[in-house]
Structure formats: C-alpha cells, structure tokens
C-alpha cells in the first residue's frame, strides 16, 4: 500500500496536477481572504464557504487521472497482478490524493494568523476559523473519494474530468434542486418506484442476469407498495428528504455558521467510505468483465 501511495504522490507532484491544484486553491484562497478582510470582515469561515466553489474545478483536476489514466495506459494490469488486495491499492491512491488535496488547505490555515498579526482592529476568532477548516478538509476528502470513484469508471481522462465536474456541479446545487421535488405521498412513491427500477437496470447491466434483476426489482417495488399502504402519510416529502441527504456541500453550511458539527464530520467520513468501497467494486468488476 505504501508503494502505491508513494507512486501516486510522485505522479501528482511530478506531473503538473498537484501544483496546478495547489496554485488554484491558494490563488482563490488569497483572493477571498484579501477581499473579505479588506472589507473589514473578521469571519474566516466566509472564505472557506466561498472556497467550496473552487472544489468544483479542483476536485476533477485532482482526481481525473487517478484510475482513468492507468486504464488508458494499460498500467492497471500491473495493479491487478500485484499481490495486493484492491482495497489496499485504492486506499493507497486515495491517501495520496487526499494528502495533495489537504496541503493547500493547511497552508490556507496560516492566513488567519497572518491577518491577525497585521490587523489593526478586530482579530479573527481562531476557534471558529480552525473548526471550519477541519470541516472544509473533511468536505474535500469526501469529494476526493467521489472523484476517485468517477475516475475508476472511465478509461478516458478528459471524460473523467467532465463527468466529475458535472457531478460536483450537481452536488453543489443539490439543495435548491431538491426544492423542486413534490411533497405529496404519491409523488414520493412514484419517485421511489422509478429509483428502484433504475437500480434494477443497473443490477441487470452489472450482473448480466436479467431474471435475477427482474425478480429483485419486483420484490423491491412490492415492498414499496406495502410500505405505502401501511404508512401512507409518512411518504409525504420522504423522497425529498432522502435525496436531501446527498447534499454533500450543504453539510458544510453549519461550519460557516460557527457550529462545529460532529455529525457532519461523521457524514463526510461515511461518504468517503462508501465511495472508496464503490471504487474497489468498480475496479474488481474489471477483473470479471474485460
């Protein structure tokens, strides 16, 4: 795992990727710090809140190559033939990406100290600033895991970057979008039913076992029907609620309101774990297909 980690780090730092990402984050970090603090704001969390937008470009840039490039160059064959479990390989890659993602964030952490040292009046409250920075880094970690997963689905770096950017954009505007979901119980049922059908199709494509996927989807739909009959009122707004849970970026909001929300940290760790698991599965799937 250490060898994989070091190689990934090496490729990030020897190529331009790591530096471009770092420059991007630090440049915009600097611009935001300057802009906010010249205006007299003493709230560093504003800077970080604005910086989450830069992840939309930063994360695809950072993660696009991670697996897609290996697949394109056929170096992934080496990974498959190594006496290492896929979990370790994915973890090694992820840790390198997470480290490169975190370094500019840590440098950003110096800015409040610099501002406080230079400020003539009104110091930045460091506790909330660093609390928010921790939240910011955990958000970055979760997004990096999502980016890694998207890269593992592609064998074209450009496509991986594009798809990752799209997903990041969608997640960024997730909450306003989920606002359009109808609150009626029937709409929830239909939406869940459609989601189950999509899941069935994915299952069919993955396993190439039409019968199994069909039966599984039918059972899922039937269970939905039964639940709906029993707890009809509970269905009101349920779909919007469930989908709302995926609002990765919005979890950061509480940090910018000066609340250190441990639940959000746990949430980010969970998202990271789920997407790393999915990445391992997507890599393992290649072993079964072609």
């Amino acid at each position, binding site marked *: 795992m250490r*060898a994989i980690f070091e*190689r990934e780090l090496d490729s990030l730092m020897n190529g331009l990727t790591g530096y471009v990402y770092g420059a991007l984050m630090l440049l915009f970090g600097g611009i935001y710090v300057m802009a906010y603090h010249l205006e007299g704001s003493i709230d560093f969390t504003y800077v970080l809140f604005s910086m989450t937008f830069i992840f939309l470009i930063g994360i695809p840039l950072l993660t696009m190559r991670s697996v897609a490039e290996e697949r394109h160059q056929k*170096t992934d064959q*080496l990974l498959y033939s190594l*006496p290492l479990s896929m979990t370790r390989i994915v973890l090694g890659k992820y840790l390198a990406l997470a480290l490169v993602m975190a370094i500019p964030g840590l440098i950003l952490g110096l800015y409040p100290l610099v501002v406080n040292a230079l400020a003539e009046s009104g110091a930045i409250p460091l506790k909330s600033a660093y609390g928010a920075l921790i939240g910011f880094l955990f958000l970055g970690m979760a997004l990096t895991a999502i980016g890694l997963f998207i890269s593992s689905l592609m064998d074209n770096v450009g496509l991986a970057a594009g798809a990752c950017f799209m997903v990041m954009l969608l997640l960024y505007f997730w909450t306003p979008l989920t606002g359009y979901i109808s609150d009626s119980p029937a709409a929830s049922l239909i939406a869940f039913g459609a989601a189950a059908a999509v899941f069935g199709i994915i299952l069919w494509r993955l396993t190439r076992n039409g019968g199994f996927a069909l039966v599984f989807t039918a059972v899922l739909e039937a269970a939905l029907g039964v639940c709906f009959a029993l707890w009809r009122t509970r269905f009101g707004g349920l779909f919007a609620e469930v989908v709302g849970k995926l609002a990765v970026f919005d979890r950061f909001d509480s940090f910018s309101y000066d609340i250190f929300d441990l639940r959000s940290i746990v949430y980010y760790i969970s998202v990271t774990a789920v997407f790393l698991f999915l990445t391992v599965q997507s890599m393992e799937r290649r072993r*079964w297909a072609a």
Partner: protein
Amino acid sequence: MIQVSHLTKRYGDRTAVEDLTFTAESGLVYGFLGPNGAGKTTTMNILTGCLAATAGQVTIDGFDIFDQPAQAKARVGYLPEQPPLYTGMTVREYLSFVARAKGVKVAALDQDLERVMTVTGVTDVAERLIRNLSKGYRQRVGIAQALLGDPSVIILDEPTVGLDPLQIVEIRELIRSLGKDRTVILSSHILSEVQAVCDRVLMIHRGRLVASGTPAELESQFAGKITYRVTVKAGPLEVREALETVPGVGEILTRPDDAGRCALEVSVTDPAGDMDEKLSFALSDKRIPVLRLEREQASLEDVFLALTKDAGEQPESGKKKRRWRGGRRHESDL
C-alpha cells in the same frame, strides 16, 4: 509449478477459453501457440489473477489464484501484452516501485534491482525516463519488472514483439536461462520462436488446447508419412530396382531429367527405422551415385496449420497442400 484444471472463460455468450487443463513444471519453458484471438492473452490474464475465470481452477505452487491471491500472485511475474510502464518515471524508480509493491524487503531491494537490470540489460538506461526509451528497451523493462521478487512462475505475453533481431536473440537466451530453475510460460504466434525457445508447446485454438508436447513429439505425432527426397545419377528403372526391395519403402515417384539424373520421392512406411542409411546403402550397393538425400518431415508449422484449420476437417486432407508450404525441416543432407 502451475496447475490449471478445467479453466473456462466466457464473455457473455462468447467463449474465450474452454475447459483448459494442463500442468506446467518447474525447469521448463512452455509456449502457448495459437493464431490471434485463440485465447492466449485471456488465459494468461487468468493465470496471473488479472481476470476472473468463469469456471475452473488455477494453482501456483499449490496456492489457488482466486482463493489465496496474495500468496499465489507473489509467486508469479507477469509481462502483459502491453508492458505496464509508468512512462513518467525513470527505469530505476519504476522497478523500485514494483519491487516494493510486490513486497520485496527493503534490505534486499537494491540487490534485486541490480539483478533484474543486469539480466535484462537495462542498467545503462536505469536513470532515464521510460517515456524516452525505445520499444525494445521498454519491453526489457517490462520483463525486468516481471522478474522482481524472484517469482517461481514467469508468464510472458508475446515477449519479443517489437524487438530488433539482435534483441530477439538476447531475450530468447534470457528466457531459456530463466527456464532452468523456474516455470516459464510465454505466448507467441511465431512458430520459429516457440521452436527455438520452448521445451513444451501448448497449441491453443479457439480457446481449446488442441495439442501439447515437446516440439519434436508434436512433429512426429502429426508427421504421417515421412518422405525422402533423393536425387541420383541413374535411370528411373535402375533406381526402382534398387529401392523396391528395401524394407520400409512404400511408394516411389521418379522424375528423370535430360542430364541422366533422376529425382525421387520415396515414401517411407516405417519412420522409426534407419531409413537414411538403408536407402543410401541400397543405392551404393548398386553403385548408383547419390547427389542428394534428405528427409522431410512435418514441421511445427505444418502441425500448427493442420490443427488450426477448421476443426471438422480431417488431418489427412490438408496434407497435399501442406507439403508445398515453406518452413520444411531438413534433418539430414548428403
């Protein structure tokens, strides 16, 4: 040692490998021979754990590649069809990465690197970026990578593709020396290569093992009739008289020319007998000067062509055509 039993791989409804069973012993070089698309690469990918099989079992030194992948893979070195090189690294960096990923101990790392770089002849380019290397050197780095960690089984998918003739000779020598105390499996669609390098040949056609054995065994097994091509300075009748009484001689075709010579094609029914000697003695007893005498036998190429023709076809029917193809093997010239 590598044991493969009833290995099958299907892609949807296309069968790439079907019921493949063989054992590869240590100390021998095995050659997978088959036309493009025969299932060589698929088989090799399964043997190295890069691809999962639909059915069947692969064990390496007793470790199952699917159930105990870490132990099994640690004993295999693999050069895929396209060498998996990180082109942004130098040769030394790359090999050091592979060695560490394979779990080579830090203390033994430098020694192992030097060893594989020396045997593959890449020491001179150790500090160069892989992207700046020629195809031949890249292939060698790919082989070097497979040798790291001193695996007991080495699997090479078309190891000499893209190399110049001198490099091919070097790599073949390297493969032969590796095969002395290891199991080496290589794939190729080049017959002369397999003939030159391999102790055992596994012929694969449409995912099935159609023949296996030493190159000589395969040749004799599929040889059918052995024919002698003889040119003598005598008339056709004279020669027939001399040869017809020799035991083991079958049909004799004669083709006299204007200069008093006669070209013969002598079919032999008893391939084991010392027909070279019997024929030449029979002719010399009659004081017939022999200008040429050569034994003609099915070569590995003939076997290959016969087996990879359509499976339904009788081996006999391809024979007349086969006789006139190139690549004949002459065992004795007089």
